[in-house]
């Protein structure tokens, strides 16, 4: 049975398709090396248009207004530039009220697209531009350690990893974040303190990696200018052991955080990349795996929420659980020794490469 897979891999090759939400302009070329925060494409997602009534402005009829327009379609104009002018005894003109571009000339009107701040699509991971996608984005390829998360606040950055946790269940406290961490990325198990997030902002952290976060902090986390990535979810939940082990053994190394939100339609999700040389050719990990005996899984719901387990067997038909639920289930051995029957719907494959 196919099931979603989360990758926590010490060394792999990664290809990420980075696309604008709407057509725009590419800012990179094929083969170019990029950092996670480099802009690879831009687009105007919040356009602002101004309609100029040339006929009324010049005091002429709609039909004849066109002949007084001195600019062409797609012309770029600065604020105050003359768009149309009628000379004679009484010279009258229509000027551009804002800097922009002429996008439409029709029936005595000119439509100007004002210059607005562009949406900037970041590379998300450091690597090489492997493919350009016309007007939409690029495929970035790189190699290194990969840790996929479950939630992100939408920011991207990179910095030196500082492990502030002595175990996956460590709780981040405000006093742990001081000036010595400025410009770095910190890792801990859980955070339930708004003060800790504010301190992180004050110290200009470039990233925060947690196993979990109190859900009531999610609005604040979304506002933070630095990336915040949760490897496991919301509530009081330790970081899964594999992610903690892989990340904590990379203490004091440069890591890139792409905390983009999980999107099940497109498959994009928050990720941590620790760049490493690829060496021999590696295969990119498959986004889904096949559930079966011997597969390492993460249990996503109580009573074993967040625990890792190994599938012993997929149970045939439907299984009646202790609470009376009849579901497709698997018998699993939870890391630590306990065995349990868990609904297949509550298992996620953990791929270690």
């Amino acid at each position: 049975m196919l099931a979603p897979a989360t990758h926590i891999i010490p060394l792999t090759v990664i290809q990420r398709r980075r696309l604008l939400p709407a057509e725009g302009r590419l800012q990179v070329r094929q083969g170019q090396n990029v950092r996670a925060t480099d802009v690879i494409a831009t687009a105007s997602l919040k356009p602002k248009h101004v309609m100029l009534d040339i006929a009324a402005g010049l005091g002429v009829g709609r039909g004849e207004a066109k002949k007084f327009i001195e600019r062409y379609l797609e012309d770029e104009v600065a604020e105050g530039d003359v768009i149309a002018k009628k000379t004679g005894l009484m010279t009258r003109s229509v000027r551009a009220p804002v800097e922009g571009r002429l996008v439409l000339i029709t029936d005595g009107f000119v439509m100007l697209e004002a210059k607005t701040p562009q949406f900037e699509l970041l590379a998300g991971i450091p690597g090489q531009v492997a493919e350009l996608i016309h007007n939409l984005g690029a495929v970035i390829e790189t190699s290194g350690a990969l840790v996929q998360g479950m939630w992100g606040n939408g920011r991207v950055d990179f910095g030196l990893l500082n492990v502030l946790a002595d175990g996956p269940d460590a709780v981040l406290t405000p006093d742990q974040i001081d000036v010595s961490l400025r410009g770095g990325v910190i890792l801990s198990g859980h955070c339930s303190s708004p003060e800790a997030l504010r301190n992180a902002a004050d110290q200009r952290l470039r990233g925060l990696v947690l196993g979990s976060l109190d859900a009531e902090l999610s609005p604040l986390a979304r506002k933070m200018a630095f990336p915040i990535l949760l490897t496991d979810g919301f509530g009081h939940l330790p970081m899964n052991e594999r992610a903690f082990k892989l990340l904590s053994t990379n203490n004091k190394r440069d890591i890139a955080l792409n905390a983009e939100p999980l999107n099940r339609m497109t498959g994009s999700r928050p990720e941590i990349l620790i760049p490493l040389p690829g060496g021999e050719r590696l295969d990119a990990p498959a986004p889904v795996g096949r559930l079966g005996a011997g597969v390492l899984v993460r249990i996503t719901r109580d009573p074993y929420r967040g625990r890792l387990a190994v599938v012993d067997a997929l149970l045939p038909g439907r299984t009646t659980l202790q609470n009376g639920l009849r579901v497709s289930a698997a018998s699993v051995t939870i890391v630590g020794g306990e065995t349990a029957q868990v609904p297949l719907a509550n298992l996620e494959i953990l791929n270690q490469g």
Partner: protein
Amino acid sequence: MTTSIVNADTLLAIDVGTVTTRAFYFDAVAGEYRFVAMGTAPSTYRFPINDASEGIRQAISQLEEITGRQFVSLEENLISPGTNEGTGVDTVAATISAVPPLNVLAVGLLEDVSLESAKNLASTIYARVVDTISMNDRRSLAEKVDEILRQRPDLVIIAGGTENGASKSVIKLLDVVGLASILLPENQRPQMLFAGNPAVAPEVVSTLREFSTVETAPNLRPALDVEQLGPAQGELRSIFRRIFSARNPGVKELDTWTAGRLLPSATGFGRMVEFISHHNHAKAVLGVDVGAASTVIASAYTGDLRQRIYSRLGLGEELESLLRYTSLANVVRWLAIDVGEADVRDYVLHKTLYPNSIPVTAEDAAIELALARELLVTAMKDARKYFPANAPEIKSGLMPAFEPIIVSGSTFTRAANLGHSLLALLDALEPVGVSVILMDENALLPALGAAAEINSILPVQVLDSGVLRSLGTVICPVGNARFGTPILRLRVVLPSGEEKRLDIKEGMLTTIPLEAGQKAMLQLQPLNRYDVGLGGPGRSGSVNVVGGDLGIVIDARGRPLQLARENARRKDSIKKWLWTLGS
């Protein structure tokens, strides 16, 4: 009473849900159509497969294993028609709900009239109205264009002008749509549907067709006080199919298999609610379907179907949206266990990350049902504005007298404790009078609704065969009396002649065991001018009922339901009710 059939066509029905794809097989057994078997598989509409057909083939493959019948050839083609050698199928029906909601721009002349109808039409498919434009819109032309460019709608629904009514102002509304279309890249221009004054339809088409595909449909508002959505819904469904067939190869293939009759699942569901309403002229029928990605409320009275799809209200990855419409305190009020608002917020956000996961612990199951209650309360609050105007009522301001109430959605139908499901439904829907609660536990109704288009006998006979599971008959008296006042005298007569008598007091919730399929006669004598829907306050009468999982349930907790304000008292009451229904 159903008709026996001689030359029966076999039917394969597919439903592509957000989480699960189901394949149903229907065949004639002893001269009548029966639901034979179902195969299921995880849906593959989304990443990483991005092709619904993989899930469809896996579901069919499971169905083949169960039935021993081969539906798909080794070349992966559907085998049709069916053969005597036990392969293939004669007809195919299909429904889909896995698609993301369409972004719709609704355009209408008057805000409360045609614009409202354009929005209402959008609510009959999986759609999200991202912006509206009407004659009284005070934004400048450029501001309206900017908003369209920001929202990038998939579809523009334009309404306005009664028959022989306004024409110039309707054409004027097109300026902004045309202008925005010119500025959008060709492959991102929205499809257009005009359903206004037919006199201007040719001009509308000629104005807009240079930018995009324009379809026309009968006027949504032929007169100011008449709304007709039905005729335009067919055209809307065609657009829906076209858009998603172009986006997903599996949808295109499914549409081909069904000869262009692929339906939104909610449409199939609503069609069956409408169908059932033809058979009960005394009461309206209510159907509720709470899914992972959306909630559907369908009400129908003598064939007049009113259906709303709430595309952002679901128990999956959109669950956080619920908190835009209600508070955590409103969710927590339904819990008898000690769980705080922060815990519920943690639960909600965690569930959005693992939307397909299911509750296992008693605490999780209680939170999930509390959320489902609040989701239904939220949806019903809006949907009740659109219930059939002439649906019989017991008391103004309360729900109409619905019978049956049909429930779909695994949170209710697959719950570990059906009594807890029933309590959640009574809390959220607050039925009145006498009703039956039926569960569509195999999510068959959308498929049957789609099948109805090609085989009108099949849904009738399959429904008659008892595919809907009865939770029981509920009796909800309506009136005003103090807690503990006797309000109803009840006599239950079983076919064996055995009798049970019960005096019901205001505030009680109680059950009388009556096994599924077992019949009984109920004599109801309301006291203190209470009304059980037998013709008015204080009116007595008899009703024949059939048992279900919970037998007969008398919910005398009052309408509208008032929970105790004091925490401990409220929790005690809920515990008592859970014990009554769930033990």
